[in-house]
């Protein structure tokens, strides 16, 4: 695929741990194109987060050895880690697993959001950056957006914080979002709202999404393609229908038999279910 936003080839990650070297990711390849959602699903410890963090260059260099290639367009960030500076935020952004710990607790929402806006547009005046921040909060359906700028993270609920984090991720106008289990730390009643928001944003902006999850309900809902991960490898790959309806691998069948835990699809967290 020549128009791929992200092209990962034979990615291998060795983690240097107290108990020796762990090959957490063992030769995975995948691509994500414009407007696509590619899901990596697998049980806990299978190497999903390590894959996501390797793509973003967020593994500590003294503890992780990477090989293979991770290309954003023409830029291979494994061959040239310095290029990450131009890529992070602008080409790819992270939606974290636990929104409650993902913002600095002593800085306001506004400060962190405005900072993200200005990283993209350093020349923007303060009031213009603030106006853009409010716009972004509106985009992710945070109510009373202007009032939220002066608030601190601990004053917002998990679901609202995840929306704020999505707004912050969008501030850099990236082409791709990496979402590492973006709903697994959230109340079951707000999970669907967050996933719905991501799909809505994808619809309107054509942003690509790398979705990491252990939840088949999530995978089935959002994915164009699914890669099933086990012990650092993809054991099965394909479109949703073929993987979910005709799993060829025993491991996938086991994942499938686990009951999908997803909140009711029609309950939107902006409508007051968010606690």
């Amino acid at each position, binding site marked *: 695929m020549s128009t791929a936003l992200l092209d990962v080839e034979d990615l291998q990650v060795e983690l240097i741990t107290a108990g020796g070297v762990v090959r957490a990711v063992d030769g995975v390849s995948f691509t994500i194109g414009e407007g696509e959602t590619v899901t990596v699903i697998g049980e806990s410890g299978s190497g999903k987060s390590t894959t996501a963090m390797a793509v*973003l260059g*967020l593994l500590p260099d003294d503890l992780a050895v990477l090989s293979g290639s991770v290309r954003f367009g023409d830029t291979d960030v494994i061959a040239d880690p310095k290029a990450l*500076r131009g890529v*992070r*935020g*602008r080409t790819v*952004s*992270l939606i*974290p697993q*636990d929104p409650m*710990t*993902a*913002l*600095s*607790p*002593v*800085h306001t929402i506004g400060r*962190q959001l405005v*900072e*993200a806006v200005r*990283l993209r547009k350093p020349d923007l005046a303060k009031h213009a950056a603030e106006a853009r921040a409010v716009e972004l909060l509106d985009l992710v359906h*945070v*109510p*009373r957006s202007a009032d939220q700028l002066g608030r*601190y993270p*601990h*004053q*917002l*609920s998990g679901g*609202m914080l995840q929306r704020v*984090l999505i707004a*912050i*991720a969008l*501030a*850099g106008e990236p082409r791709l979002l990496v979402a590492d289990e973006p709903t697994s730390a959230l109340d079951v009643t707000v999970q669907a709202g967050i996933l719905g928001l991501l799909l809505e944003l994808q619809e309107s902006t054509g942003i690509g999404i790398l979705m990491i999850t252990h939840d088949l309900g999530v995978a089935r809902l959002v994915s164009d393609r699914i890669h099933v991960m086990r012990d650092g490898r993809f054991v099965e790959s394909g479109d949703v229908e073929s993987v979910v309806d005709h799993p060829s691998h025993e491991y996938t069948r086991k994942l499938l038999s686990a009951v999908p835990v997803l909140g009711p699809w029609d309950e939107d967290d*902006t409508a*007051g279910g*968010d*606690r």
Partner: protein
Amino acid sequence: MAPYLFKRLGQSVLTVFLTISTVFVLIRMAPGDPAAAYAGPLATTEDLAKIRASFGLDRSVVEQYLLFLKGILTGDLGTSYSFRSPALDVVLERLPFTITLAVAAILITTVVSVPLGVWMARRADTTRELGANVVTIAGQSMPDFWSGIMLLTVFAVLIPVLPASGFATWGGLVLPALTVAILQIALISRLVRSEMAKNLTAPYLTVARSRGVSERALVWRYAMTNSSIPVVTALGTRFASMLNGVVVVEVVFAWPGVGSLVVRALETRDYPLIQATVLVTAALAVTVQLLVDLAYPLLDPRVRLGKKVSA
């Protein structure tokens, strides 16, 4: 906030009261007679009795204690035997020197320990960091008088660039302030290190890094601001304890502060002067500590604003 304030205020007053009462009793239990110290070896028994009466020491200890408490309420802490002037005035005259020393020491401590702690945190678990660790642990266990005498030997005797004692010029401040600061640097830089190490690996920092925030901003804006609350609190506490605890350093460097004053007062059994020194320094230290405790909620929005979950 108000009940908390009253509780802390009450605690502070009680601390000062217990400190001064203990000192009042202890100095009277210790061997040595103020009258003999005052009159010298040639005094007759009759002379001593007269002197004792003039000092009010012929009364019972309970009576002396009640008079002393009454004096506190009226701001009269008695007359220093050796200075022959109001004890409080003598102490207040010396106090600025001690405060100057403590302020200089805390400034040196801050300026050195913050970068040192950050440096150690960013090189967590490497050999060089281990080296810095050993040095700070050594600094922490070094007695004040030893580091003071070392600094004196090196900078005032071997390489005589700094005055060894007294406060004739601002240069005279350098060695005593450094001596006080060494121990504090060891403590504070290790606190900065552990707080920074915690924040540099915190999830919020990784998320900030993922959106392209520069390493400099990650360290100084994010991790440092989050670390600053416990560090500022610790600095305040160290400052408070310095106001009490620089006695040895003041004596080593002949620094004209309340520390060397209290040593002289002890030598001459100058009860009013000892009491006044202890009262003033204890009150000051407790006040600083109170201010630090009250400042804490102002620094931390989680405490200041409380938990309020809402859309």
